[in-house]
């Protein structure tokens, strides 16, 4: 059994006392960050990557720590979604729809327990799926040449833009801006400076970590000042936590359906977790007999999207690990993590560095079990975080962001850039331009160009080479469909979600 041997290898990597300790720390920190109102997985991991590197962990340790933080944020995010109606990130939005009404009816502890178990089911099964599917996909990915990779990157931008935003032009703009930023620095092919304006700091290019921390963490302070602390913590009362096993058991099918849909959505490159939790919720609503109670505190409306959200997070790791194409903001941040650790995701990763892949999978299992234990009986501890006032929280987050970038590079220039990205993130948020494609563009820009140029070198400058293989043609078709189809589908898909979200206030 190849699989078991691999798993044993992974657990051998991830089960040392030291890594277990790191996983525990990561889970606690992650849940805390995730529980903070408005902060989600991508903020949390973005904030902590630079610091992790400055602390000098090796690849495996950093990976264990930050995947625990990632999953911890996913678990923690539901706390602020349910108790405050403030999702930490877009995928968590669907949990608010029924979670918050439940909390208002005094059933907060049920909602938290159900969502905790649903998170566990979703991400545990998705990790099993990841384990089974990823090696297969990695084998297919060996057939990918530069032309296919170029088309694949395009597909990721198109579907991310198509499904994740309300305006195609804006997401295309965001992706192009990210790509444009990636071009800054010395050109890999010719070693000639591009867009550096003679500034030596720019010769190495713009560090994607600076952009990520700016766009995902620093931006929050601006948004918070603008909202005038409107979203700041409100006194949340949580009665004694009782776990109603019967109620949880009654939502089992919702969890499984949500897991399945979320996992599938997660695998699609570019689609990711938002689509997963959305589909899970809408499907659950459509099969339910008691449709009218959805949005008014139906436990199934908590279980399904939460399982879907977490399953999608697991599924999204598949294209990220096998192809190097992230499917969501958080997996983009995870990709940044791997790249900083000098691990290049792709099919070769599975054959050349199996200990990394399987160690990661093992640490996902470990983190999940730890989080289930921490989040169902001990949720009360984390609820206290919600009472930290915003005027301590937000400056704190900003200062941690500064420390991270400062200790990473020690340069004032990078900190200025980070603040610049924060301001840019604010303007983009106001204009409803998504920032995830910007990050994706910065992350993938150079290898996208690289693949284009290699394809052209192979074909001696013949552009039709880009469409010369069935895989490439398929990817182009999906890319175009993924970009164009939502324009027509939007009228069907988006309005109900918004209307229901608006009902909450």
């Amino acid at each position, binding site marked *: 059994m190849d699989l078991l041997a691999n798993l044993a290898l992974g657990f051998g990597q991830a089960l040392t006392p030291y890594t277990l300790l790191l996983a525990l720390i990561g889970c606690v920190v992650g849940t805390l960050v995730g529980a903070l109102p408005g902060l989600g997985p991508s903020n949390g991991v973005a904030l902590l990557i630079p*610091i992790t590197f400055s602390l000098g962990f090796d690849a495996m340790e950093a990976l264990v720590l930050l995947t625990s933080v990632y999953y911890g944020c996913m678990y923690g995010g539901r706390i602020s979604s349910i108790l405050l109606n403030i999702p930490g990130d877009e995928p968590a939005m669907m949990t608010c729809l029924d979670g918050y009404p439940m909390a208002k009816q005094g059933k907060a502890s049920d909602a938290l327990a159900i969502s905790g178990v649903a998170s566990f089911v979703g991400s545990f099964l998705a990790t099993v799926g990841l384990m089974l599917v990823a090696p297969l996909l990695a084998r297919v990915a060996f057939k990918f040449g530069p032309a296919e990779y170029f088309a694949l990157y395009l597909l990721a931008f198109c579907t991310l833009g198509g499904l994740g935003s309300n305006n195609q032009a804006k997401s295309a703009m965001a992706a192009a*801006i990210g790509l444009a930023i990636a*071009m800054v620095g010395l050109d890999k092919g010719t070693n000639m400076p591009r867009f550096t304006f003679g500034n030596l700091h720019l010769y190495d290019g713009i560090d994607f970590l600076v952009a990520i921390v700016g766009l995902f963490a620093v931006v929050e302070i601006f948004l918070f000042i603008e909202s005038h602390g409107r979203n700041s913590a409100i006194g949340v009362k949580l009665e004694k936590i009782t776990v109603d096993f019967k109620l949880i058991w009654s939502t089992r099918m919702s969890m499984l359906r949500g897991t399945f849909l979320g996992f599938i959505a997660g695998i699609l490159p570019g689609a990711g977790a938002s689509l997963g939790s959305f589909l899970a919720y809408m499907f659950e609503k459509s099969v339910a007999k008691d449709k009218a109670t959805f949005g008014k505190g139906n436990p199934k409306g908590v279980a399904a999207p939460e399982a879907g959200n977490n399953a999608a997070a697991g599924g999204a790791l598949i294209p990220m690990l096998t192809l190097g194409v992230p499917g969501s903001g958080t997996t983009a941040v995870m990709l940044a993590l791997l790249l900083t650790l000098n691990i290049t995701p792709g099919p070769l990763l599975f054959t050349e560095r199996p200990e990394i892949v399987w160690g990661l999978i093992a640490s996902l299992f470990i983190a999940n079990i730890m989080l289930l234990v921490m989040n169902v009986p001990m949720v009360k501890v984390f609820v206290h975080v919600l009472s930290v006032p915003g005027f301590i929280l937000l400056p704190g987050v900003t200062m941690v962001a*500064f*420390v991270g970038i400062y200790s990473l590079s020690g340069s004032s220039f990078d900190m*200025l850039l980070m603040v610049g990205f924060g301001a840019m993130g604010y303007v983009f948020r106001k204009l409803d331009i998504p920032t995830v494609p910007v990050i994706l563009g910065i992350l993938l820009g150079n290898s996208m160009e690289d693949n284009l140029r290699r394809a*052209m070198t192979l074909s001696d400058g013949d552009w039709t080479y880009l469409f010369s293989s069935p895989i490439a043609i398929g990817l182009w078709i999906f890319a175009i469909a993924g970009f164009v189809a939502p324009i027509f589908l939007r009228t069907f898909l988006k309005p109900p979600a918004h209307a229901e979200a608006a009902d909450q206030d």
Partner: protein
Amino acid sequence: MAADRYFGLFMLVTALGYILNATTIQDSFITDPVGPRVFPYIIGGAIVLSAIAMIVKPDPDAEWPGLSILVQLAIALAVLLGYAFLIKPLGFIATTVLASGILAYQISHRPFASALTGVGLGVGLFVLFRFVLGLSLQGLPQMFIS
């Protein structure tokens, strides 16, 4: 309405500048059929197209903050930029106390609580990062050290 158009126009000009700048990228003795300029041209083109789309078909405007909040935001931005410049000469503690104190005041409008937040974050984060996590942060102003 207007915001999208202004932004589209701004990006249109920026993208044209980007393309113009890309024409000045030099070739070297290593060559490939595509060269270092084509991909930037494609990206610039993509920005131009989406900028035109934003100008032609803008979304309804978001609610923009009033003047007083814009001033607050500008102050916050100035604090953050100042932080980036001052952290080296003034050291971590003083800069963090100052910056987080001001930011806390902007959010809470409570001077005493904000001052306390500033001191707490400045000292607390320094202890955490310097002594618990062992990062090489310089805590005190440069002149006290050398």
